[in-house]
């Protein structure tokens, strides 16, 4: 696998886990998810907003998240996403994989994660 392919796979995998992790705390709409990833990574993660909705729809098709329109008084209708039980299990599994990955990087190349 070339560097660009590896980067693409890592980016794709990390985008999914980032979205699942953000939805673990509470339901959020698409703009909020994009903004939070941008803010919380403090620019360190180069998150391409163009892939946000394709990823959201892919996760929804896989039934890892569930989207629904919510209308509240005085606010416009918004589509909120929340984690499904399958999504919660997938997130736990992904965390385990990333932990192992970072652990291996640390042991081999002394790369630590926060």
């Amino acid at each position, binding site marked *: 696998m070339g560097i660009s392919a590896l980067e693409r796979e890592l980016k794709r995998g990390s985008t999914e886990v980032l979205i699942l992790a953000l939805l673990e705390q509470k339901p959020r709409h698409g703009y909020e998810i994009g903004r939070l990833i941008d803010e*919380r990574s403090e620019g360190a993660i180069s998150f391409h907003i163009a892939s946000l*909705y394709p990823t959201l729809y892919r996760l929804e098709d896989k039934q890892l998240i569930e989207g629904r329109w919510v209308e509240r008084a005085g606010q416009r209708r918004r589509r909120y996403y929340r984690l499904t039980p399958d999504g919660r299990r997938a997130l736990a599994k992904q965390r385990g994989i990333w932990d192992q990955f970072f652990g291996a990087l640390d042991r081999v190349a002394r790369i630590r994660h926060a």
Partner: protein
Amino acid sequence: MPDFRARLRSRIDDADVVEELAQHAEQAFESARADGLSEEAANAHAQRLLAAWCASRRVASRRAALAGLPQDVRYAVRLLRREPFYAAIAILTMALGIGATTTLFSVAYGVLMKPLPWPEADRVMRVTETRKGQQARLRGTISNGPYLAWRDAASTVTLAGYGVVGNAMTILPKQGIEPVRLQIGRMTSSLFDVLETRPVRGRAFVPDDEHVPASGPFPAPKVVILSYGLWQDWFGGRDEAIGSAIRIDDSLVTIIGVMPRGFGFPDRGVRAWLPMPVGPVNGIDSTGRPFQTMQIFGALARLKPGYTPAQAAAEGTARARTAPDPGYTAVAMFGSGAAPDILVTPAADAMTADVRPAIVLLLAAVALLLVTATANVGSLQLARATTSGRAADASSASWLSKAASSASRAAPRAWRCP
């Protein structure tokens, strides 16, 4: 603010997706403006987002993915799991309606719409004699006078007569089989031409088999044709059946043929056929004295190419009126001594005329049942949607308030790369 929806609509069918992406673009635009970007720069930023989303195949095909069969199936399975009682009621109601409609439609098709099992069956007609608009006591029949007058000079049709003897006692002497009661049919030799059907073994009746003597009573029948089923039952499908003798009531008759499998005329209950002689109206008895006879029986006709039922009926009526007048016998049988008229109607229609109104009525009733079942399920769905809509509002509110309160408690989680 620029109209982001128009651009999205040109590429994306799903209105919800358009709305969701447009809202995001609007917020991105406002955010960029708040950060001090010019309107053009903020618009360019938002337009770049739109371009990226529109280029995404997954976004563009969102509706297909949602509306597709797999999605429907998944939704159905989820619903089934989540609300098995509701799903069972809906499935049962629809199954009942669809099942009843399908069953009765099968019956209606078999009885009313399926063509009769003869070649070019649409040319086979039922022939009925009326006098002053009244049919004979046995409905859908013709009497011997008009029949013979038309048969001997017909140019528009081939005419045939038939009848049913009823349950005759039949004995197969050679094999010692117990006597059984069978329904025996009668047919003229021309019926094979009208139905365009031939025996699969042996031969059909010929005019000599229905010989009518110049005087005295009709002779006893001498030949018989078996149905396929009777041939299998009695002879195991062996050819030695042809030429064997059986006794039907008091007559010893020779088996001369076997009809094809599935042939049942005038109905499937008939197991064997004897020839049917049709005598003249004016006869001479065995002592030499003249007498008048009226035979009443069913008749079919096959239209010759190029002729219509109306033309056949006109010819039949004209010929029938040349037949000898049976006098008071006609009054006794038809309730009128008027000149005969001949009606020619498609056999399929005539055979189902009695049951057609009942079946059509039942079909309409069952269709109504299906509509009712569908409406019931629809109402159930509507009631459920209304209830769950209220619940959803409540749950959305609690969902959001819970989310808001948990968010205030939750510490921000930072993801850092080294």
